């Protein structure tokens, strides 16, 4: 084999001629994220998460075969941002509810999102209604989580050489469909293999998945990970020098983030020294009487009251922080966003097990907040300065962010404290 030299981000690298760039980079200690690229499969170039530049032209890294003198760029700010954007697109295109996903902790896509430090998506969530196909014999396919990487299409065949999965439709309707007849030929082991090569939680083996609900969480505690740095926080001004003031609220959430906040444990004693907690369910102060440095918002906006409270917080706080998945993009309550409001309300008030026969009235009164057509992310309604992901976020994560803002220090979040579930 011929050995060639080429450059990645200006660094000299060597590899075998014609070797796949992803592998060649890895051997030279440079990580290029990938999703659709999978071991022995032909390069697919479909997910675009591995986008790099080759001699100035952008290209999917997984389809590049290295050659003498190539000049590859991987970690330029432009490319880092573009790759992050692709991942964000995957999050908004599907309906990825990490806290309720069997694959959480073992999900390649989630792992890459941690790797790239995604705290929220710049794009609006699309909330398209997608099906969970439980017809197949051994597996169930959850279209909400499919990123159309096509690993399964390439990899899963029956013993007599028939494809089990295939892309159908086109455009925004494109999906990975399953051939029931062929799927029925798969052995239990082959079905499990299909589940494992799926980079998300789209392919699940029926009956098997819940026996070990949260997988091995292989990605959580990997050593040698760089911490995630925080350096883009706006400076606050209100109580410079004196004791800081914090306000908190829970909108369309479950109070779990507040519970997590209390998990700071003994740290709470320090918190009390440093800050006054103003308007908050913890203090039961109902109205703002003073301006606050930080407002911590749990939960998104599902009704008019949420919007009003959120706007009040924006008016009275220097810095607003969305705490938890619900606040960041709607979270679990946003599961209703794929269903029309009328169907939701009918199901809850008219057709439920406990509703009276022939019930026609959906509760409403001028004193009751009105339900919004969707659950909205807080940053859809007001400007949000920082996002703390998690369901709930790790107590240390919350505290680290707050501390950082109060003392205006650079800070990093440990990998194990940065989670979506």
């Amino acid at each position, binding site marked *: 084999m011929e050995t060639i030299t080429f450059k990645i981000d200006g660094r000299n690298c060597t590899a075998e001629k014609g070797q796949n760039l992803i592998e060649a980079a890895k051997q030279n200690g440079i990580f290029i994220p990938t999703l659709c690229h999978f071991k022995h499969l032909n390069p697919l170039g*479909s997910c675009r998460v591995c986008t790099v530049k080759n001699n100035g032209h952008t290209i999917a890294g997984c389809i590049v*075969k290295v050659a003498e003198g190539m000049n590859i760029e991987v970690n330029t700010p432009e490319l880092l941002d*573009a790759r992050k*954007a692709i991942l964000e*697109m995957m999050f908004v295109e599907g309906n990825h509810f990490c806290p309720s996903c069997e694959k959480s902790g073992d999900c390649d896509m989630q792992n890459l999102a941690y790797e790239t430090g995604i705290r929220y998506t710049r794009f609006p969530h*699309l909330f398209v209604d997608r099906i969970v196909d439980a017809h197949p014999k051994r597996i169930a396919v959850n279209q909400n989580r499919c990123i159309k990487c096509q690993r399964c299409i390439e990899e899963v065949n029956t013993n007599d050489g028939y494809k089990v999965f295939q*892309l159908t439709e086109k*455009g925004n309707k*494109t999906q990975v469909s399953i051939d029931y007849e062929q799927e029925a030929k798969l052995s239990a082991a082959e079905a499990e293999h299909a589940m494992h090569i799926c980079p998300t939680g789209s392919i699940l083996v029926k009956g098997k998945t819940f026996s070990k609900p949260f997988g091995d969480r292989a990605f959580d505690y990997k050593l040698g990970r760089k911490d995630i740095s925080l350096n883009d926080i706006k400076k606050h001004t209100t109580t410079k020098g004196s004791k800081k003031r914090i306000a908190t609220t829970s909108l369309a959430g479950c109070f779990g983030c507040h519970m997590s906040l209390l998990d700071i444990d003994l740290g709470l004693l320090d918190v009390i020294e440093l800050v006054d907690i103003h308007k908050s369910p913890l203090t039961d102060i109902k109205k703002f009487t003073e301006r606050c440095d930080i407002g911590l918002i749990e939960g998104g906006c599902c009704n008019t009251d949420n919007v009003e409270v959120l706007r009040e917080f924006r008016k009275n706080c220097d810095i607003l922080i969305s705490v938890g998945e619900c606040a960041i993009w709607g979270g679990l309550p946003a599961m209703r966003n794929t269903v029309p409001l009328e169907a939701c309300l009918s199901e809850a008030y008219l057709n439920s097990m406990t509703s009276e026969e022939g019930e026609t009235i959906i509760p409403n009164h001028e004193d009751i907040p*009105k339900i919004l057509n969707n659950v909205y992310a807080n940053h859809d309604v007001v400007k949000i300065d920082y996002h703390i992901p998690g369901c709930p976020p790790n107590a240390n994560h919350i505290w680290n962010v707050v501390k950082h803002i109060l003392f205006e220090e650079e800070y990093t979040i440990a990998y194990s404290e940065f989670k979506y579930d």
Partner: protein
Amino acid sequence: MKRSRLLTRLWEFQNKYGYIPDVAISEIAQKLRVSKIEIEGVVSFYHFFHRQPTGKYIIYLSSSIISEFKGLNEIKTAFEKETGCTFGVYNQHPLFSLFETSCIGLSDQEPAALINFYPFTNLTPKKVASIIQDLKNGIQVDSIANKPASKIQFIPSEEKTVFFRDYHLGNSLENLKYLDANEVLDIISDAELTGRGGAFFPTAQKWMYGKNATSELKYIICNADEGEPGTFKDKALIQNLPGLIIEGMIISAYISGAQKGFIYLRAEYSYLLAKLKATLVKFQKHNLLGKNILKIPNFNFDIEIQLGAGAYVCGAETALIESLEGKRGEPRIRNSFPTERGFNNHATIVNNVETFAMAARIIELGSEYISKIGTKNSKGTKLLSVAGDIAKPGIYEIEWGTTVEELLNRCEANAPYFVQISGPSGECINATEFNRKFCQEDLACGGSVMIFNRSRSILQILENFIQFFKNESCGNCTPCRAGNQILFEKIQKIKRGICTTDDLKDVQKWAQIMKLTSRCGLGQFSGKTFSMAIDKFDDYFNLKVTTCSDNCNVEFDIEQAISDYEQVVKNTQL
């Protein structure tokens, strides 16, 4: 059965039953020894194949932006009223099924529709009523269809006309008798012909790659999948000069040594099939196709026509090849040129209709004739399909280097404001740029020019474009599939009146990300016009959005957000 016969076989079922029944899928899957889902994947990719029974008459109404401005909604309502059917819904009427479809290449005669692939143009509600009545009365659809020849509105002076001059069958091919392949290639090279589909790749170079390829079998493909909305110049060539296109293909075969050619004709142009086939027969009769063409020993070449089935992306050459192979029309990842590995992995030359026609004229008239016309980098003339708010829509054969202004005057544009060059994936220009020239150095135009006046909503134009890309993306790569949906959401937000200048900046950043990361041209350029329009029509956008500073509030439309709830409550209080 060969896999490459798949589309043809599916068409047989579609035409016979009005849809592709389950038994057909099973039968084909069995014959090809593939799983059924693989056939489903192909069927569902092309929007002229149906999986549910359709009426005797399938009506495809063009939803192009030109059609929208010329009264699409009225026509839609008229069709629904007259047939009692709803667009996009199956099984409502034994006679009729209604669907919308992307531009059908009749922008100069919109609103237009295809009924069982026969064209009906310049529709009015009255005309729709009479068409439906006739069909209900059992009158044959072909007898009432229009003959939609595009008007050739302009050709240059005689010594500068290349395409629309006298044509005599086989004129260009006569020269092959006296020239060897290299000499013919040199003439094409001297005339500096570049690809007319819009990519401007040097044709001589492509043909040389084809010639030098060591592949055992070689193919010539004529890309007649003219899908870019607003374009209909290839259709005009097929209608008026089908022989010229075929001659271009024969010349290309002479150079490269290919023995087989395909014309990939979009299904929207099915009504041109008969003419094209008749022309091929004429060529065969004159020994210009077949064995030992022109009595040149071992010069064998034949052409087959493949009908597309409704997929814009198949206009991209590698997607077209995939489609020809009987697969989903997804563009390939670029590891090699088709001239190395194309159709069934053999060397394949793919060129646009106009490129082949031009090549034939070059061989007929000589490279010197061509070189005298045009600009430094663009030689000869160019066919433009011009439509929109103008008095004279149709085909314009212009000399490269003609300014937009000259064209606007010729087509008698009425207060032009927004001009879209090369279709939705091209670029838009405003009134300050009308002095720009059509040529590779400046406005590298693929063939479509759409002209909109001041009364037209730019947002409506952009929405139509993004909607088109959203539907027509092959769905394979993330930035194109998801990106176009995301841009579409932004347009909805602007339409609701809750956008700030930050949202417009987002659009430009996001279009740039799509450009950087998409797998093929569709995704790379789908956000381009939107992004450009924001800069070029800031007077328009300033009226639509609020200016945003550092601490700007996010706009949230609470009225809209509670409208569903109020409606539900109202409906349930009765």
